[in-house]
């Protein structure tokens, strides 16, 4: 299962970096507004990460508790004495782009999305299935960031002129997420074993979670995700 999930993640990451939108940001052909919209969406996407990690921590399998606790404390910036929370690092990114005036509205958008997710009727019958679905989605972002965040930091620095100090969130992820992603894949395998999923059941839930490219959807919007799968025509 671990290898199957890793392969699936790899496919989705490839789809992201091959998307028209990502390539435009990479080669500098995107407009300033497109860089800004990307930054805004990254901010919005990751604002709720501590909430989701808290949820995952509460249902983690015993073998993964330590890893998730570490992630959660790091996300909150309280694992080390001089640590900064990830949402605070995201604010640095937004400030570096001169978009601090949008912070409140972006926070409100992130909150609204969280509210929407919480209030949506639940399709699965128990937290076991919901937990697996949430876990694979969150680990997928760690996996993706471990592979593309250096590239993102480079293009935001080169083409959007954001200073290195404001790109810490990305450089941090490029360094630590290779390890996080590996541990995350282990956590998925542990979760599947601990809660007694059969392979087919786990694959079905993961398949349902990744019917769309969640990276393109979160970073470039629903329309971009649809375009990447030819769903717009």
């Amino acid at each position, binding site marked *: 299962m671990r290898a199957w999930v890793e392969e699936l993640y790899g496919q989705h990451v490839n789809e992201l970096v091959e998307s028209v939108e990502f390539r435009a940001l990479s080669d500098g052909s995107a407009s300033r507004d497109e860089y800004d919209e990307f930054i805004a969406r990254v901010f919005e996407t990751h604002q709720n990460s501590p909430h989701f990690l808290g949820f995952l921590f509460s249902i983690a399998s015993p073998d993964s508790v330590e890893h998730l606790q570490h992630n959660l404390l790091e996300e909150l910036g309280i694992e080390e004495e001089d640590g900064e929370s990830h949402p605070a690092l995201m604010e640095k990114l937004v400030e570096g782009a001169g978009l601090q005036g949008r912070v409140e509205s972006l926070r409100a958008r992130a909150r*609204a999305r969280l509210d*929407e997710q919480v*209030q*949506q*009727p*639940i*399709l*699965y*019958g128990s937290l076991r*299935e919901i937990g697996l679905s949430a876990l694979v989605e969150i680990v997928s972002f760690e996996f993706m960031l471990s592979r593309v965040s250096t590239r993102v930091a480079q293009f935001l620095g080169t083409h959007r002129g954001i200073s290195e100090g404001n790109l810490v969130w990305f450089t941090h992820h490029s360094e630590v997420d290779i390890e996080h992603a590996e541990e995350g894949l282990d956590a998925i395998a542990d979760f599947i074993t601990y809660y007694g999923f059969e392979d*087919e*059941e786990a694959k*079905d*839930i993961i*398949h*349902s979670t990744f*019917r*769309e490219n969640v990276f393109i*959807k979160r970073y470039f919007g*629903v*329309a971009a*995700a*649809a375009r990447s*799968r*030819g*769903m*717009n*025509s």
Partner: protein
Amino acid sequence: MRVVRADISPLNVPFVEGFAHATKERRFSDTIVVRVETDDGTVGWGEGIPRPYVSGETVAGTVGHLEEVLWPRVKGQEIREDGSHVVLQEVDQLLGGSTPTDEERESGVIAHHSARAAMEIALVDCALQKGGVSLASILGGAGHPSVYSGVLTQADPEKTRGIARRFARFGLQEFKIKVSGPETLECIAAAREELGPDASLRLDANGVWSLEEALEFLTAADEYDILSCEEPLGRERMGDLPELTERSPIPIMLDESLVSLQDALWAISSRACDHFNIRVSKCGGIGRTLAFMRIASSSGMGFQIGSHVGETSILSAAARHVAFSTPEVRHLEGSYGTLLMADDVVSSSVRFGNGGRAPLLKGPGLGIQVEPDRVEQWSTGTVKLS
């Protein structure tokens, strides 16, 4: 309060995955959302889904009918604001008939029902919003929740098996399978094997068979314990329906051949089917849908409340209010929300949850919060009328 403005927005909302049946594969929704506003600022939302192979309506033709025929009937008219149940009759009278002109009929239009449904739902929502009354409450309390069915897109047997299994993981127990040629019998077999003997299965052929083909297919499919087969022959072969209904081992349900009340009366008097598939947009709105239900009920005809592929939560909400108003609804479809579409136009999804269960919508009007920005995002060109 008087109706002073209307916005007509044709939407193309992309699907998460393609959805296919015997005559069409869809990758995005083609629907029309109507927003009406009164002189005191009260707003109501409605939706209709024009389908050439159902009512003969196209998106362009429906926008035209809304703009040129229905809006002049509605503009400046007074609608009641006390939340009384008579609003349905009053709006029905205001909108009048939906019969096409001779020229339209020649081009294939059977009835302007999706246009009528979009405007009717918007006006009723608006009136009930003002009155602070939910649509459910004027339909008698809507205390009869049904569970939603899963609809399996037409695919090869292995894909069908996977889709069925994933739907079953959501706790669904009722399913409809899109079928066409003899090879799709294997899809039924795969779904039955995957879902087990307790799941209920229905078929939908979307009108592709001749009488002989239908009899052959349904005789072969009978071993899979099928509850009914929807639209086996299509409107152009309606004359064969009484014979098929008499000879088929599987009960027959009408859908595309059931657009007007005349269709319903003919089907009953001719014994042309066993069940009706009643859909709010296809039937011309909430009031007309209730009329179909009354006709079915009084004649002992079974019926389900169906949906239109690609409907947003606006139409899904209207259908839910109607469906929950009576215990006679055999099956309920729709409210797929973002299970099918990549986005919706409301802030709180009306998608069903585990087991196909869904709550009654208790807020005023349709009980949903439409987000105008989302409507605008997916609009291919809003027509603003005042």
